[in-house]
């Protein structure tokens, strides 16, 4: 193999080295350290120079050869990244449990999960909150300054937007609900509808840490955050 100064061989060897480097970079399951490629090349081959040459050959193409730290890898050209991200939408009705939970959060925010459960008289499955997070309608506001520091939930701007409300104050109050026939007229005098609050943290709320994972799955949380 490779007599480095045998010029007659060189163009062929050089081309072969390039091909080998290209194939190894392509097939590797992780970014490649050029040191690991050296044994596959002719003896005096300058693997760094080969990599730069290959990089130049791929510049402007659909795939680029990029350096990541000491290692090299093929990546889709950045301006074509959109090809790898598809968006799909499907619509389905919100479950009753999700609808009721959302309604509770809307009126009683900031509210903790335990409080919603007490108000509803049934426990909330994690999936229910996940769905509402995913829909971008609720968010974690902070943590209540009570034992256990439970997460407080509130609605998002996406919620107002979806339900056609300018502000939370547009949510109908007691008299309006009665007027619309949604609440019966025979209610105990103690029956009240709270004034929902989606503004700044209240006195009994602490802010969430940036890495606070709340009570939710990390992945869903990330999506939910992405919506904000």
């Amino acid at each position, binding site marked *: 193999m490779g007599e480095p100064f045998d010029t007659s061989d060189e163009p062929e060897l050089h081309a072969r080295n390039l091909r080998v480097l290209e194939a190894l970079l392509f097939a590797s399951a992780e970014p490649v350290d050029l040191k690991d490629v050296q044994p596959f090349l002719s003896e005096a081959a300058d693997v760094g120079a080969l990599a730069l040459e290959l990089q130049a050959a791929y510049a402007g193409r659909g795939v680029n050869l990029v350096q990541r730290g000491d290692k090299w890898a093929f990546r889709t050209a950045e301006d074509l990244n959109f090809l790898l991200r598809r968006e799909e*939408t499907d619509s389905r009705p919100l479950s009753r449990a999700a609808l009721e939970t959302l309604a509770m959060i809307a009126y009683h925010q900031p509210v903790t999960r335990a409080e919603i459960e007490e108000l509803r008289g049934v426990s909330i499955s994690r999936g229910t909150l996940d769905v509402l997070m995913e829909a971008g309608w609720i968010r974690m506001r902070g943590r209540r300054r009570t034992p256990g520091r439970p997460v407080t939930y509130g609605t998002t701007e996406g919620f107002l937007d979806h339900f056609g409300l300018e502000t939370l104050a547009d949510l109908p109050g007691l008299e309006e609900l009665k007027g619309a026939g949604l609440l019966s007229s025979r209610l105990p005098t103690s029956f009240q509808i709270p004034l929902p609050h989606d503004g700044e943290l209240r006195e009994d709320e602490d802010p969430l840490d940036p890495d606070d994972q709340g009570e939710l799955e990390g992945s869903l949380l990330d999506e939910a955050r992405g919506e904000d």
Partner: protein
Amino acid sequence: MFPMTDTQHNWLEAEPSAAIEPDAVLRVDVGGYEGPLDLLLDLARKQKVDLAQISVLALAEQYLAFIETVRKQRIEIAADYLVMAAWLAYLKSRLMVPQQADDDEPTGEEMAALLQFRLARLEAMREAAARLMNRPRFGRDVFARGMPEPVSITRHSLWEADLYQLLRAYAAQRERAIPAEYAPVQRTVWALQEARDILERLIGQNFEWVALDTYLAHYLGEPQERATVLASTFSASLELVRLGQVELRQSEAFAPLLLRRRKADVD
């Protein structure tokens, strides 16, 4: 087609046939063969000629001899092998006995050609399999992108819910949560016994027909009690009729109910 490199590996030669020498054949375990065709093909190879030129007669004899030896050793032979043996014995006889003019059966030559065809085809498939396996194969010689960049599909769920549904859900839950307070409305109900006592007292010893409403005029003044007064006294009157104390009469549907003391009772 593809370079015959030294990595060439004959995938199909590894097993039993390679081990068999011509005179070792008789010692071979029949179980090592993949059926009678495989055995025949192996025997044919021992003739070391092109399959098209093998002596089918000699082949048939070798096969029959092999089966005979195996049977003498009391080794169990699968039925496939015996069927083939019978067919080859027949083939042998067809090849050796001249064909009759009126014979509709395939000639010995036709049968021999069929056997040769089947052997050639089996061998061809074996070679084809070996050539396939020696091709540069994906995952061994040829590779895909090691770090594919998967398409990430972001699914947006457009949840369907409107404000009315939301409000109705809220109101329904809040109402459900209201502690149910039972404050039953106090209503005057005429107990049957009470109605009967009153009725008996009113009728007294009156043997004339009098409308029930007339007796009850005093009690029917209160509208909310009207229903219970009527219902209870009517029931009570039926009871008194049953006991033979009172007579009851109505001329037509919805006409006034008339009552009187039954005369027979007055003794």
